[in-house]
């Protein structure tokens, strides 16, 4: 038979009015799920942007003037966009002080409706000799460089194109390509592209079915020498080469970040309001509990309960409520985040998954906030309960 303890008495107290307990748990769960959703949304967008920028491995990205937004859409959001500049710009970039390494990509969007072509997808042509972005990924997945007439699918592209098998052939702009593999997931917008070396572009241009002209590239990635400030070098680049815009790694996804800041404000306000309401609800319910059970508390005090025993008894009750509500809230919030992710274009177009450690931290924050709010709301009534004069409350009928 179970022994009587503070915990068992607190649990019995909670079971005494299950509807009221349920309302409190539901309110806390609601608050925590809102909090979890808000944090998950913000963190997943922000960390995905950072991860994408970091995975690209470039300190500065150089794009045709006015194409910054397109470049970010291509690299971060997986959108089909085309933007080009003359390859001669590479020489001008090399002349800028502080550049250590440089490579470039040419982006193409295959068009639906062309006879025998694969479904519309994004094509990234790179220079295998200078590349420091695709080559490391290739090394991980394929273990060798791509040859002429070969391509490798990005992680997301393989899903979209239904590439379950390797070594299949695909037609792109009237050219046959052998798809020799699938890259690991990189967490960037390039997950949704098909990669090939730039040697293949000659045949594609000759087919006349792409907007690309000879001697054009889309984007230049640069690495800086140690000690050079990306923002400073970026400003110099834009000053020396008016035909280009420069994006530093830390500024990648600025459009997202600005939108995110506004969304955060809305989330913050909503969460604060919900927290205040929940705290008030807990306070109101525990005030009612204090009145209802005042005689019992007086009896317990007469039986030898110290003030600290009364606090402990009600604190256990509050903690169980807070933890139960928070756990339900964490589960509901996590589920909600996963389910609703597809409904938000901000999350849909970027690789917005959270890591296990990020999810764990968010869950811990949810548990902590839910429980703290519950304890905060109940503290004042609990303090009143413990100060009750035993004789007065015992005599109250």
């Amino acid at each position: 038979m179970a022994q009587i303890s503070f915990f068992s008495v607190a649990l019995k107290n909670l079971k005494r009015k299950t509807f009221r307990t349920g309302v409190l748990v539901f309110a806390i769960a609601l608050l925590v799920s809102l909090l979890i959703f808000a944090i998950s949304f913000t963190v997943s967008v922000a960390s995905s942007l950072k991860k994408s920028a970091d995975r690209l491995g470039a300190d500065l990205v150089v794009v045709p003037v006015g194409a910054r937004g397109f470049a970010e859409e291509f690299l971060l959001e997986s959108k089909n966009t085309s933007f080009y500049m003359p390859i001669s710009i590479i020489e001008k970039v090399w002349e800028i002080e502080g550049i250590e390494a440089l490579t470039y990509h040419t982006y193409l969007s295959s068009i639906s409706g062309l006879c025998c072509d694969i479904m519309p997808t994004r094509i990234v042509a790179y220079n295998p000799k200078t590349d420091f972005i695709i080559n490391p990924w290739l090394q991980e997945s394929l273990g060798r460089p791509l040859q002429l007439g070969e391509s490798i699918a990005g992680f997301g592209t393989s899903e979209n194109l239904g590439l379950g098998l390797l070594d299949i052939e695909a037609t792109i702009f009237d050219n046959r390509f052998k798809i020799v593999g699938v890259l690991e997931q990189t967490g960037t917008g390039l997950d949704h592209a098909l990669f090939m070396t730039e040697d293949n572009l000659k045949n594609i241009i000759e087919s006349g079915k792409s907007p690309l002209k000879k001697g054009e590239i889309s984007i230049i990635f640069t690495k800086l020498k140690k000690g050079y400030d990306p923002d400073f070098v970026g400003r110099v680049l834009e000053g020396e080469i008016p035909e280009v815009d420069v994006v530093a790694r830390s500024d990648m996804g600025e459009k997202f970040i600005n939108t995110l800041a506004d969304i955060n404000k809305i989330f913050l306000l909503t969460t604060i309001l919900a927290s205040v309401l929940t705290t008030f609800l807990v306070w109101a319910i525990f005030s009612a509990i204090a009145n209802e059970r005042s005689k019992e508390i007086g009896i317990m005090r007469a039986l030898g309960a110290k003030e600290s025993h009364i606090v402990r008894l009600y604190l256990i009750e509050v903690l169980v409520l807070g933890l139960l509500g928070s756990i339900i809230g964490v589960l509901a919030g996590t589920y909600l985040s996963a389910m609703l992710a597809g409904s938000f274009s901000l999350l849909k177009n970027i690789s917005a998954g959270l890591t296990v450690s990020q999810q764990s931290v968010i869950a811990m924050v949810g548990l902590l906030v839910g429980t703290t709010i519950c304890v905060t709301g109940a503290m004042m009534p609990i303090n009143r309960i413990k100060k009750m004069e035993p004789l007065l409350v015992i005599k109250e009928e």
Partner: protein
Amino acid sequence: MSFLHIENLTKTYTVDHETLMGVDNVSLSINRGEFLSIVGHSGSGKTTLVSIIGGILKPTAGRVLLEGVDICTLDDSKLSEFRAKRIGFMFQFASLLPILTAKENVLLPGIFNPGQITDNDNTARGLLEMVGIGEKLDSYPSQLSGGQQRRVAIARALLNNPDIILADEPTGDLDEETEAEIMHLLEEINKKQGVTIILITHNLGLAGKAQKKYRMSRGQLVDI
């Protein structure tokens, strides 16, 4: 020195700027193992007096010395320990917690005084058997009669082997037969276990069963 010595005890209340006298300069000496009754009308100060003796109310003036220690000077923590270890309370109403079974109600004081009771189940069973309701171990107060609830309250009062039982009209709303049974139980506890009992009642018949009898009137204690 006597076991329990009450010295010039006074308790006043202020209600709407008016000072009311609860206990008026009461002095009393009680020996260990005595059975003492105090009779008086409602509002005469009986409950106030036993509440001060039991340490749940602070006097305005005077001292309550238990084996030489003035309990009125103890802080909340020490006073609670004193109540848990040395006092057993019985109230003038059903004072059981409705969410707890008879057994759990009996064991409740034990959680405030940990370590004293080692075998909870057997202790609770033994006490409930002693008061004659051993079979009601797992019954909730709502499933017990008024008399059975008082018996549980007696068992609970005895859990920590108290020196004193303060019984404030413990048979107030019971029928005569049950009242006699409860009184008999208290007498047995007093005789067999040597527990000092202070019984508050308005029933002169019950009060007459005690070794020492007092009357309270307007806060003052008179020997009868």
